[in-house]
């Protein structure tokens, strides 16, 4: 057993109304927090990390990442993804099942856990598919997936087109106590379009799709969740109208939750004007009013939490024509920095809401362990230096991928240590120095 003592940090956990200077003692055998308090005794032999002036938070949780394994391991593997997570300050991640083959059976889920354990970095929790092969035709073995440890179900990358299948999935998953997570897009309306439909798509001559394509499925699934008495989670919400729909549904006590990605809070479709595929993702970057609505939704709790939609691709793939390049951007190593600098330091968002939306809120959405700091709880901790100034340089990332839309951004605030089950890792704020 080896002890780790985080000495004299600002221990900060909004979920437990904790905000004081204290030591945190953890051990990597039990993987638990042993003590939180001022001037802790009985710490002989412990590795001491000076956290004076640093923020000591519950481990950050990213409930939407793509690690591409099995399948496209040139983009990312579970090992490189999990390493990228701890480098970015994340102790737990939830992997999407749109791998090749997709995670639509128990063995595939078991494989994810195995690779996650082997990597020994961030905790890796896989989601299972809603439908067999993500084909949208028949239900995947939801019960067996749950038994193997799938934390929720999604066909992410695409919506389930059939309302009937979605109803069945919701009714079935409700009995398993699992959440249905939907990539909300009416594919008939979006019709293969690759960016937001608006002024910019009109100018560029690129086929865009309207926000209504997202809103239609958000509205449908809210109705179905009510019908099935199920829990429904909106992935990567991006449109103003979707935020309004979720707000209304919550007011009517429908069990709906939502997440938003940093790029949908900080960027608009104007970024696409240079035809740089590092601004191409789905849902696409939308307009200023959508960004504002997402920030508002985050502030008032309509949107429960952040999630990166970390979607690694090779530089070769992203160097193709804008229309040909695959969708998605990475986020694990910039999530904390960009939001701190652009939303918290600018006073749009409180530090409290920021930390909560990366910790207790996502844990609650999917019923994951962690998300708070308490004795005997998991020793998952994220340590942040709110004052560190740094510049985003994708070449310094641990992820295999470099498809980052925040390249060159000057930031203030970075994760410096990540502790997973009592094990200490240096985060990007530390390794950049």
């Amino acid at each position, binding site marked *: 057993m080896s002890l780790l003592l985080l000495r004299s940090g600002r221990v900060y956990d909004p979920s437990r109304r904790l905000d004081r200077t204290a030591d945190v003692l953890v051990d990597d055998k039990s993987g638990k927090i042993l003590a939180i308090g001022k001037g802790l005794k009985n710490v002989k032999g412990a590795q001491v990390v000076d956290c004076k002036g640093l923020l000591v938070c519950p481990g950050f949780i990213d409930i939407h990442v793509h690690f591409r394994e099995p399948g496209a391991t040139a983009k990312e593997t579970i090992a490189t993804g999990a390493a990228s997570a701890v480098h970015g300050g994340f102790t737990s991640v939830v992997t999407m099942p749109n791998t090749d083959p997709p995670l639509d059976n128990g063995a595939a889920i078991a494989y994810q856990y195995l690779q996650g354990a082997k990597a020994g970095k961030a905790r890796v929790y896989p989601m299972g598919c809603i439908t067999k092969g993500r084909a949208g035709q028949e239900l995947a073995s939801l019960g067996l997936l749950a038994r193997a440890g799938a934390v929720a179900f999604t066909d992410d990358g695409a919506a389930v087109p059939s309302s009937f299948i979605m109803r069945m999935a919701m009714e079935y998953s409700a009995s398993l106590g699992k959440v249905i997570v939907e990539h909300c897009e009416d594919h008939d309306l979006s019709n293969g379009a690759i960016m937001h439909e608006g*002024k*910019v798509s*009109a100018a*560029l001559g690129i086929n865009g799709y309207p926000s209504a394509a997202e809103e239609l499925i958000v509205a449908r699934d809210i109705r179905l969740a009510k019908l099935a008495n199920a829990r429904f989670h909106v992935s990567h919400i991006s449109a103003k109208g979707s935020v309004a729909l979720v707000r209304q549904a919550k007011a009517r006590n429908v069990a709906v939750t939502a997440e938003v990605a940093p790029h949908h809070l900080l960027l608009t479709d104007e970024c696409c004007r*240079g*035809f740089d595929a590092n601004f191409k993702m789905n849902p696409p970057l939308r307009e200023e009013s959508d960004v504002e609505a997402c920030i508002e939704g985050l502030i008032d709790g309509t949107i429960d939490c952040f999630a990166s939609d970390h979607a690694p691709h090779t530089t070769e793939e992203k*160097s*193709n024509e804008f*229309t*040909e390049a695959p969708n998605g951007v990475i986020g694990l190593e910039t999530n904390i920095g960009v939001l701190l600098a652009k939303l918290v330091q600018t006073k749009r968002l409180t530090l409290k809401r920021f930390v909560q939306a990366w910790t207790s809120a996502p844990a609650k959405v999917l019923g994951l362990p962690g998300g708070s700091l308490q004795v005997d709880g998991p020793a998952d901790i994220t340590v942040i230096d709110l004052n560190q100034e740094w510049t985003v340089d994708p070449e310094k990332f641990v992820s295999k991928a470099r498809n980052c839309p925040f390249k060159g951004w000057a930031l203030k605030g970075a994760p410096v240590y990540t502790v997973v089950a009592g094990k200490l890792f240096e985060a990007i704020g530390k390794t950049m120095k």
Partner: protein
Amino acid sequence: MAWTRKHLLDLESLSASELLEILDTAASFKEVSTRSVKKVPALRGRVVVTLFFESSTRTSNSFQLAAQRLSADVLHFTSEGSSVSKGETLIDTAKNIEAMGVDAFVIRHSAPGAPHLLAQHTDCSVVNAGDGCHEHPTQGLLDIFTIREHFLTNAKGAAKKRAPEKTLEGLTVSILGDIRHSRVARSNAHGLRKLGARVILAGPPTLVPPAMGKALDVEVSHDIDAVVEQSDALNCLRIQFERKAGRFFPGVREYAAIYGLNPERMKRAKPHAIIMHPGPINRGIELTPELADGTQSVILRQVTNGMAVRMAVLYLCVGAGKGKPAAKAAV
């Protein structure tokens, strides 16, 4: 002013004076095509590659002939389909050709922004010959050249009062038809607005989305009769059935009746109004044959002017005599 650009990627990024530089250079090259020996040595020893990833006859022919009239060596490369389906990226394809020792790429591609991408990865000049539904700058230029030539020679007095950057002020140019899928409309709109013309985009609402009016700072109308009455130039665009435009309106017969240009409708037009079309024409749909071949049509003049405009663009972007008066090199 001196032309300093190496590439012609779009008209959106050009200034009014850069547009005029091309148009004036084209005017001096136009005479070359009327000679018995239709050749000048401006690009002798230079290699121009026409890199066509989308089928085209007139644009590629026009560019090849333009390059040859400037005495360049021309290599024509065609490949259907996207880089992904071919298994070789656009950049790899271009780099391989570049390694053979070439000076310029004239690229036609189905992906918007493909020329911009290529320009970032090559030392050669890049001329956009049409990128998806984005822009077709030389078509825009030859349309504007034709309008300017027509109205400035026919109404010299009025023209003289205008500042050069506002050379088209007072003219209303309407672009009719499948605007949504049209790179020609986008290039025309950018260029015409910079030179002071009033621009109306007209057609069915599904093919002329209001967002395009905002995006291009032009007017949008769905009432063709009203548009015809106000216009000095009517530029009819083809329905791009190859881009599935047929899904955007009820049918060809309805289209021709409500949005097509026919002699009956042309009775409303100003007597001096001209009819343009970038071709190829869907005869009887967006434009009736009588009008296409009639006295108000300048369609073949557009094709002739296209040669001069493309010579000017290649000369300015690739030519050794960058910034020198074109007339000197054209001698």
